[in-house]
């Protein structure tokens, strides 16, 4: 069942176009993450869905209802802000009650709901404090609590974790995921943090300059990026891009990278390969590993030129005919700069892009 439908949404401020041609169907219970660099329009899209900003053209449906012209309060949504946006002059309790009071619910019911949700979020001991007396993590919880008490059809999160330190961010991420599993409510979540996006999303929407680049499960988007931007935006260290030329020979397709020739038998072409076509070949560092000799993987002998230790793994830069290629090696794999060793490439996971359009081919 479709819960939210964004149809042909456009947004411009004067001459500046913020969003173009956004269409998106969201199923009930999905956890949609809008991902993109700052200024890509992801927050604007969220605010449009919330009804906080009017759209230039197009329409929004929530729960089968056209809400394009409805006020935020009539859209059956709740939102958590990056700055938390807690009312500073009200206690935590009053913050959580405010929305329900505005809706004229009976006081006893409001009290009960607030107590229950506060307990659920572990903030019931903070109810009488002011937001200024809370830590960042506690404020975050209260902000979520304020959204949860309303039991809305949709939760909107606008970069909710970016004001927290790295460690707290990790644990809050897990909690949001648990919360989603428990409530089963549809979530739209805006972030520029790919780790959050990958771990939380059931589906990911990658955006750039107001245009949707790709919609899909985190796995799809990561392993089958539809364009070079998406490929590049996800993953750390970033995908290796190598200029190559397609070759058709011996009834097989090859990619020629300098003097190296890579077989593309396992690549699912979208377009018919043409001999001599220049392409960009993309390989994730996770697909470049030490050859263990056992399997019949594609293997090259490469020289390590740089090693970065991250603790859990090493990022090794190899020289491939004068081009740099980064691979992820286990930390316990003994290696020093300057050594040449056999390196295995997982060719099932590579991507090919057109050099001009940068689209997957």
């Amino acid at each position: 069942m479709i819960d939210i439908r964004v149809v042909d949404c456009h947004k411009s401020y004067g001459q500046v176009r913020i969003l173009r041609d956004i269409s998106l169907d969201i199923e009930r219970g999905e956890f949609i993450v809008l991902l993109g660099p700052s200024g890509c329009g992801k927050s604007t899209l969220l605010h449009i869905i919330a009804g906080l900003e009017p759209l230039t053209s197009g329409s929004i449906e929530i729960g089968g209802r056209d809400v394009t012209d409805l006020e935020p309060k009539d859209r059956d949504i709740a939102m958590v802000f990056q700055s938390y946006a807690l009312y500073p002059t009200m206690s935590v309790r009053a913050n959580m009650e405010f929305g329900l009071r505005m809706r004229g619910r009976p006081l006893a019911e409001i009290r009960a709901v607030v107590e229950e949700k506060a307990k659920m979020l572990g903030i019931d001991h903070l109810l009488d404090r002011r937001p200024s007396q809370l830590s960042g993590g506690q404020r975050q919880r209260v902000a979520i609590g304020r959204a949860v008490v309303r039991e809305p059809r949709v939760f909107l999160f606008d970069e909710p974790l970016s004001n927290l330190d790295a460690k707290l961010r990790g644990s809050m991420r897990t909690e949001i995921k648990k919360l989603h599993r428990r409530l089963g409510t549809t979530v739209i979540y805006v972030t520029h943090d790919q780790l959050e996006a990958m771990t939380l999303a059931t589906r990911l929407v990658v955006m750039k300059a107001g245009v949707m680049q790709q919609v899909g499960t985190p796995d799809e988007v990561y392993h089958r990026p539809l364009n070079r931007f998406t490929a590049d935006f996800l993953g750390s260290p970033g995908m290796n891009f190598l200029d190559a030329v397609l070759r058709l020979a011996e009834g097989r397709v090859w990619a020629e990278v300098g003097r190296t020739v890579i077989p593309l038998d396992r690549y699912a072409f979208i377009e018919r390969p043409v001999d001599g076509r220049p392409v960009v070949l993309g390989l994730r560092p996770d697909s470049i590993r030490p050859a263990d000799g056992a399997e019949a993987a594609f293997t090259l002998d490469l020289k390590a030129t740089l090693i970065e230790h991250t603790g859990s793994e090493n990022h090794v830069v190899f020289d491939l005919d004068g081009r740099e290629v980064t691979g992820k090696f286990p930390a316990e794999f003994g290696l020093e700069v300057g050594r040449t060793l056999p390196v295995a490439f997982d060719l099932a996971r590579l991507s090919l892009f057109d050099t001009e359009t940068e689209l997957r081919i």
Partner: protein
Amino acid sequence: MPGTFEPLIPRPRRRIFLRRTERFAARFAVYLCLVIVTGFFLAPLWVLLVTSFKPLDEIRAGGLLDLPIAFTLDPWIKAWGEACIGITCGGLKGYFGNSLMVTVPAVLASVTIGAINGYALSKWPFPGARFVFAAVVAGNFIPYQVILAPLAQTLRITGLFGSIEGLVLIHAIYGIPITTMLFRNFFLSVPDDLIKAARIDGAGFFWILFRVVLPMSPSVIVVAAIIQFTGIWNDYLFAVSFANSQNAPMTVALNNLVNSNFGVREYNVHMAATFIAAIPTLVIYVFLGRFFLRGMAAGAVKG
């Protein structure tokens, strides 16, 4: 710590003793200057106060700064209840009341309107909001002389000329630019996310103003109220132009009392009257000086 302004003084070790005496001399000079300055600014108030408690013959004998020998409250009693201003001899008390009746409603009205305007301009912007703001704020800089004559004409036509209501209306209207500016600039610092959160929670334009924004802004409300109170209480131009003698506020009455050329000049009564006229704003200054300063800096632009 007193006596140190370390960044100013280089510290060669062998001159440490000399440095101390030098420093002492410098401190002494600073305080001496400040005492002179203090004397200049306080003397008028002091003279005002002591003179108002002296009988006339003691004043004529000189001794401007001296405490009264024959301390008397009569000048105060006379200034408040008996002094002749124009043709009536009821003292200042009626005019004090006029001032209150003009000032209080005008302050309430202009602060309320300014708060709503500032909120609308900063938190609910629309195309052209900046232009509207500029057009309103420009009103702060305009010398009132340029609107005085048409204003008098308008008041005559509407029958408000000479009345308290007329003055209230004028002060309320011409208070809009400064209060709008103050509130708008303050509200810019209120995060937009709060407004958005409240909208999602279901609060409307005025609910958000009264339940979320204004509770966060007591200081700017006080500042705006102080500017308006001081400005309107101290106003002379509008008062002398538009109030009839019966509805005149304190400033006009005081000037008429002191600068009238009839009869014996009762300086002690004049000084008491002057003090009475200054009391409300002085009290505000003493108790709310912190806000007063902020208000003055912001309000100095006002006509």
